[in-house]
C-alpha cells in the first residue's frame, strides 16, 4: 500500500485556497479538545504515513506526519531508543504530526527538554500550497531561520506538516522512582528545585495528594547511589504512573472535564494551596480543576511571568491561551500572514485573530 498522500494533500490545500475555504488539519483526532474550536473542512493527514528513514546510530528518525506515534515508539524501543520528550496526551490514534503541532511534552521535559528541543527538520505545505523543507536530519544546523521549531505548538496555523525529523535518545539502562511525603505542595516544590541543582540523574518529578515522586534514569549504579543520597520509598509500580500522568489518565484528571494548566518558573511558591492540584516539571507545570484555584496566578500571568491555558473544557470559542501583548500579537499576525495570507490553515485555532 502506498502511504504517500503528499500529492493529494497539496491538491486539497490548493483547492481550499482557490475556494477561500478554511481547512481543519486532522491526524488521529486525539487532540481536538485542545486549542479553540476547530473550523473548516477536514484535511485528513492520517493517510500520509510511514517511517521514511531511521538510523539508530545517527540518533535520528524521519517519518511522515500521519504515522502513529505508537508505531514510532515501538520501532525506537526495538532499538533501545525513545522520544526524549515523552509525547503527552496520546492514544492509539495519535499521529506524529499532531504531537508536533500541539507541542505537548511529558514528564521528562524539565530534564531532557520539550518537543521543540528534539525537532531537527520539517517538510510542510504552506498556505500558498507550496511544499517546503526546513532544517534537516543532522543535529547541528543553523542554515536559515528556524522554521522547524516554529512549527512546534503552532497548531497547524502556519503549515500542514508532511514529514518530521527528530532527534531520539537511548532508553536509560535503569529507571527507578522514589516517593516522599510532602503535605504542603510548597515543600515539594522546594525539594524538587534543590534536587534539580544537584548533579544527579533526575528524569521526572511530580507532586499530588501529599506525595512527591522522583524518577531517576541512568546507569544502574548511578541511580542506586543517588537513591542512597536522597532516600525516599522505592515505588516499584511507577512506570504506569508516569504514563498516566502524561496522558491525563490519573483519577484527578478523569473525574472532571475542566482542566487548566499553569506554566511558570519552577521554584515559584504557591500563595494558597488548592485541595486538588497536580504539579510536575519541578513546579514548572501545574494542573488545576477549578476556576477559583488559578486566581492566585493572575497577577503573575499579567506580568508575563506565568501563563494560563484553558487546557480542556470551558468555553472553547473564547480565547483559551494567555493573552499576548499587542506588539507580540502583531508579530504573530505578520508571521501567520507570511505563511498563510488567505488564513486557510486552522484559522482561529490558537487565537481568534490568527
Amino acid at each position: 500500500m502506498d502511504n504517500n498522500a503528499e500529492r493529494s494533500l497539496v491538491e486539497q490545500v490548493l483547492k481550499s485556497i482557490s475556494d477561500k475555504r478554511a481547512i481543519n488539519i486532522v491526524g488521529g483526532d486525539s487532540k481536538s479538545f485542545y486549542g479553540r474550536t476547530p473550523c473548516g473542512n477536514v484535511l485528513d493527514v492520517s493517510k500520509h504515513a510511514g517511517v521514511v528513514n531511521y538510523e539508530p546510530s545517527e540518533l535520528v528518525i524521519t517519518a511522515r506526519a500521519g504515522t502513529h506515534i505508537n508505531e514510532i515508539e515501538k520501532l525506537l524501543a526495538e532499538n533501545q531508543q525513545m522520544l526524549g520528550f515523552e509525547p503527552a496526551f496520546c492514544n492509539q490514534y495519535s499521529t506524529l504530526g499532531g504531537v508536533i503541532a500541539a507541542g505537548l511534552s511529558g514528564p521528562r521535559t524539565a530534564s531532557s527538554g520539550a518537543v521543540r528541543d528534539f525537532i531537527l527538520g520539517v517538510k510542510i505545505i504552506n498556505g500558498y500550497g507550496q511544499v517546503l523543507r526546513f532544517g534537516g536530519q543532522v543535529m547541528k544546523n543553523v542554515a536559515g531561520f528556524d522554521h522547524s521549531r516554529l512549527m512546534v505548538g503552532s497548531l497547524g496555523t502556519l503549515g500542514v506538516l508532511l514529514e518530521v525529523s527528530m532527534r531520539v535518545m537511548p532508553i536509560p539502562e535503569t529507571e527507578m522512582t522514589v516517593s516522599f511525603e510532602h503535605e504542603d505542595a510548597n515543600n515539594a516544590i522546594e525539594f524538587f528545585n534543590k534536587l534539580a541543582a544537584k548533579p544527579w540523574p533526575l528524569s521526572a518529578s511530580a507532586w499530588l495528594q501529599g506525595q512527591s515522586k522522583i524518577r531517576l534514569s541512568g546507569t544502574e549504579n548511578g541511580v542506586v547511589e543517588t537513591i542512597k543520597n536522597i532516600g525516599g520509598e522505592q515505588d516499584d509500580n511507577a512506570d504506569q504512573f508516569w504514563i498516566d500522568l502524561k496522558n491525563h489518565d490519573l483519577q484527578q484528571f478523569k473525574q472532571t472535564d475542566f482542566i487548566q494548566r499553569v506554566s511558570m518558573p519552577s521554584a515559584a511558591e504557591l500563595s494558597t494551596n488548592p485541595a486538588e492540584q497536580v504539579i510536575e516539571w519541578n513546579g514548572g507545570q501545574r494542573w488545576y480543576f477549578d476556576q477559583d484555584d488559578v486566581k492566585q496566578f493572575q497577577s503573575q500571568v499579567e506580568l508575563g511571568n506565568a501563563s494560563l491555558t484553558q487546557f480542556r473544557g470551558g468555553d472553547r470559542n473564547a480565547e483559551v491561551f494567555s493573552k499576548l501583548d499587542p506588539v507580540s500579537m502583531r508579530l504573530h499576525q505578520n508571521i501567520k500572514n507570511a505563511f498563510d495570507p488567505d488564513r486557510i490553515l486552522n484559522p482561529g485555532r490558537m487565537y481568534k485573530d490568527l
Partner: protein
Amino acid sequence: MDRHELSRLFKDFLPGEAVIDHPVSLKAYECDGLSAYKQQPLLVVLPQTITQVQACVSLCSEYQIPIVSRGAGTSLSGGALPHAQGIVLSLAKMNRILDIDEYNRTATVEPGVRNLAISQAVEHLGLYYAPDPSSQIACSIGGNVAENAGGVHCLKYGLTVHNILELKVVTIDGELITIGSKALANPGYDLLALMVGSEGMLGIIVEVTVKLLPQPETAKVLMGVFDSVEQAGDAVAAIIADGIIPAGIEMMDNPAIRAAEDFVHANYPVDAQAILLCELDGTEQEVSVLCQRVKSILNQRGANETRLAKNEAERALFWSGRKAAFPAVGRISPDYYCIDGTIPRKTLGPVLNEINRLSEQYQLRVANVFHAGDGNLHPLILYDSSIPGQLEQTEELGSKILQLCIEVGGTVTGEHGVGVEKLGEMCIQFNEEERNQFHRLREAFDPDKLLNPGKAIPTLARCAEHNAMHVHKGEVPFPELDRF
C-alpha cells in the same frame, strides 16, 4: 545622509564617546572573525541602556539606515560585517550580569556579557552555562544567541537554542518585547527559537536569560588512537548505538594531530591517522561504568591504543590539543579558512576521502577537526593570502566541500552561521520557494529590511548569479559518490 550629519543626530541622545565616527577608530570594526571580508560603516554606536538602543533603532528606522548589531565580533561567517551606508550597533558596553536566580537556576544578563563570564559568576553555586563555543573566553552571549552557537558539548547539552529561556528584544520600530519566560512552556509561536540563530535580522537582543545546569560531579576523558578515520567514525557510531551519550566526542585527522602536537605538546600520537577524544560526565559511579564500556568499544573497533586521562591535569592536556587546533594550524600556514558543514555521521569516511581528493586537486592542504558526535565537520584549508588568487581558490574549495555536505544530506553550517560567507551555498541548500518563505518571515519583523541586510538569506538575484556560475545543466555534483 553623510557621516557627520548622522553622527550629530546620535550625539543628541548618546554621550560623545559612544559614537565613533573617525575613520581611524572605525577601522577596528571593519571586520569580524572572518577577516577576509572588510567594510567600513558610516558610524559605530555603543549604547549602554535599553532606552538608548531603542532610540538608536528608532532613529535608523526613521532615516532608513541599515543596522548591523555586533557583540564581541568573533563571528566566523562575517555576520557582523558592516554595511557601507549603515551603522554598527555594538552591544559590547551592555555587559552587566543583572540577576542570578539560584532557585530557578537561571541567569539574566546583558547581551555583551562574555559566554565564559556567566559560568564563572555562578561557579560558587555549583552551576554553569553549558554551551561552550571555542571562542567562549571572548564571545558575547548576545552573539551566541544571534548565531545559535554550539561547542564541543552539544550532543549531550544542546546548542544555544536549548539553553536560553527568555530574551528582551528591541524591534525595528524601537519597541521592547519579551520573548519566552523562565517557564518551560509559553503561549503563542516559538519566537524564541526563531530569534536564536536569526543572525541579527529580526531584532536587537538587549537582554538574555539563560538556563544554568548543575556542574557534573566528575568528567573523564578517553583517547582512542586509530589507523584510519573510517575506523574512528565506526567507533563513534558504536558508542552511540550502545546507548551512551558522551558529554563530548571529538575527532582529529593526521594533519590536525601533527599541527596540534607541534604547538601544545599534548603527547598526541603523531603517526595516527585519527584520534578520538571522548569525554564522559555524570556521577562518579556512572562515569566509572561508562569509561569501561567506551574503552572496550574503542578496542573492539580497532583502536591501537586507548588512554584514560589519569587526573584533571592530564584531562586538560588531552583537550588542550583539540582546543588549540585552530591556532595550531595558524602556526603552520600563513592563513587558514575554517569550514563548518554538518553531515550524517555515517558519511564521514566517503566525505573525508572526497575532501582529500579535492585537497590534492586544488593543491591546498586541509586539516580536519570534527565534532564527531553531532556530525559537525571543521575542515581547515591552509592557504597564503599573499599569493595572488589563492584566497579565491580556497573559497572555491570551501564551497565544493559545503556542496558535498549538502549532497550527503547535511547542511552548510552547523554552528558558525551563514553570514556573508555561505550565501552562495544557501542557494543550493534551499530552493526559491523556501528562500522566499525566509524573506517573508524576515519582512514580518522588519518590512524595510534594515536589520543586517545582505546576510544569511540570499536574494533571488544573488542566487541567479551563483547558479549561473556553479550549475551545469542540472548535472549532479560528485557523481562518483554513493547517494545517502
